[in-house]
């Protein structure tokens, strides 16, 4: 059981990549990229987890209580927000691609480019 979270990481990563490769719609492809990125959150949080430990907040528990790693949590936290903004940028590109070429199918977009 202790390997399950790491197996989930690999599974989410590969599933997202599969979606990117086989996608026929740019918006769907962007969502698949988010799936790929989500695997890093699972990995970060799994790496820092410690069985039975508390969250790294010491408002109501003494400082020496065993706690999980705060560094990976900080990494995941900022990344979630930044990812949302970057996704918006990608969606903006999709909007312009549709305006210009009238399609969101990546295969057709490649053909238009020649």
């Amino acid at each position, binding site marked *: 059981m202790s390997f399950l979270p*790491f197996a989930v990481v690999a599974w989410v990563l590969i599933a997202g990549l*599969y979606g990117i490769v086989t996608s026929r719609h740019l918006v769907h492809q962007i969502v698949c990229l988010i799936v790929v990125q989500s695997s890093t959150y699972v990995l970060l949080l799994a790496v820092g987890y410690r069985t039975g430990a508390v969250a790294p*907040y010491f408002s109501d528990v003494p*400082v020496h209580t065993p706690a*999980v790693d705060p560094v990976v949590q900080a990494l995941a*936290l900022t990344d*979630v*927000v930044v990812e949302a903004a970057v996704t918006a940028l990608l969606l903006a590109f999709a909007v312009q691609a549709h305006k210009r070429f009238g399609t969101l199918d990546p295969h057709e977009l490649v053909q238009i480019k020649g």
Partner: protein
Amino acid sequence: MTERWRRGVFLAGAAVLAAFILWGLAGLPGFGRYPGPYGDIINRIAVAQTNATGVVSAVNFEYRGFDTMGEEFILFAAAAGVATVLRHLRGEDKVSTRQEALDRVAPPASDALRVVALAFTGPAIVLGWWLATHAQTSPSGGFQGGVLLTTAFVLVYLAGQVLLFRRASPEDLTDIAEAVGAGGFAAVGVTALFLGLPFLSNYLPLGAVAGAVSSSGTIALISFLVGIEVGAAFLLIIGELMDQALLVREGR
């Protein structure tokens, strides 16, 4: 390349990739057996050093404040990118879709949606503000707080008040708020230099009681500035994407 070939090549590559990833992950200490030492060291010293009881915030805005500043500027660049990519191009007129279809009237937002959306607007603002200003004590901080502040404006939009959304978030004001948030973070860091300290040093008084609202010095200040920046950036992005609904391409 045909669809089938494409898939075949990917599956072969993915199998190799998966094998390497799993091999690498198998070498990690098992799940739930975090070996340390960095997280443990920070957990032990952060409260005494910064007077912030929320160690995640202390890491974000103090120990790796420099990295967080970089991440904040990614956000800033992404918002600027959205505004640039979606700028009004030549040949595009701002024409309301309603003018294109005068005989069709868009159905107004239902009463149920309006009541729920407007009932949640106030709490969203309060909770967002609380999150942005309490990074030092609780699992919060400017990143989540800013997103929640934006949610309040989106709720106004959902209630069918597009014009009110626009009036409540004028573009000039949003731009200024974003600049103040992003620039303020850097300014806090540079101020430390002028005081003869390393960049982003915590030079404000840490407060007497750990975990009090007034504690943790620059951690609370930076978190608040990040909240402003994140809220303004997402307002800008959502406003830009909404504008697209009003744009129709000439000659189509």
